[in-house]
């Protein structure tokens, strides 16, 4: 039976495929990494958001030791790299039923759409999300222009 959920699933699949091919074409080749278990896709996923003052980058990075994360801002490029390790207290000999999460080293560079004050950038890691706050450079902030009535 074709129902709404079926179409939603197809739509999701199409988007996933689109993302995969974008990575292959080299347009966003830098961000594409191969993660065992996850396959070839951009990892981590990054949202770029902004308000008047700041640019925000949010990365989805569950279950990572924050001390393993490295974050650099160079000109207009934000680079997130790190290592997602398998669980430490896991015994050596186990029987696997599912292995979907994947682990390994990763690196992703995201181009920022505008100039930021790199020395005032700050980041926090909370509930598996990395949130980076990048204050916009003065030139990139919106400035109100007074209109004179003549």
């Amino acid at each position, binding site marked *: 039976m074709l129902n709404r959920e079926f179409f939603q699933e197809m739509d999701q699949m199409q988007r996933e495929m689109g993302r995969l091919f974008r990575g292959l074409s080299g347009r966003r080749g830098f961000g594409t990494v191969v993660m065992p278990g996850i396959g070839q896709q951009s990892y981590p996923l990054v949202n*770029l958001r902004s308000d008047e003052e700041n640019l925000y980058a949010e990365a989805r*990075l569950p*279950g990572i030791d924050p001390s393993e994360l490295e974050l650099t801002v160079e000109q207009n490029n934000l680079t997130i790299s790190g290592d997602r390790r398998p669980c430490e207290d896991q015994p050596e000999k186990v029987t696997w039923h599912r292995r979907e999460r994947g682990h390994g080293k990763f690196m992703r560079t995201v181009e920022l759409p505008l100039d930021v004050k790199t020395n005032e950038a700050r980041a926090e890691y909370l509930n598996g999300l990395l949130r980076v706050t990048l204050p916009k450079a003065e030139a990139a902030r919106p400035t109100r222009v007074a209109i004179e009535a003549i």
Partner: protein
Amino acid sequence: MAENKLNIHNDEKNKGLSAKEIHGREGCQRPAVDIYETEEGLVLLADLPGIEKDGLTIEVDQGLLTIEGHAMMRHQGQENRDEFSLCNFHRQFRLPDTIDPATSSAVLKDGLLTLKLPRVAAARPRRIEVATVH
């Protein structure tokens, strides 16, 4: 030992569930999981980015394990280019009868859920010492 093997069934394979449960709830994502078996029982690791302790419910009802995460964190600023959303999570598994839900324990740290599901004591492998009689 062969009889002691645990089997975890995924939601999709269980015909007893409604279509809604099989495809997951609307607006919910299925979290990626690792499940492994040790002598003590099963350990389930689930990626739940953006989920806080208060937004997470784990239930076992008649052998059906439900993990449900309600996202309470909010995005900052206005959207420029989004690759993911802070969504809710939902996934179900059918647990084997040899799991004792009463003794299971869960820890949520940095968006990673570690759920330990021990076997009932009677189902654990036990070595029987052989005494020699002279």
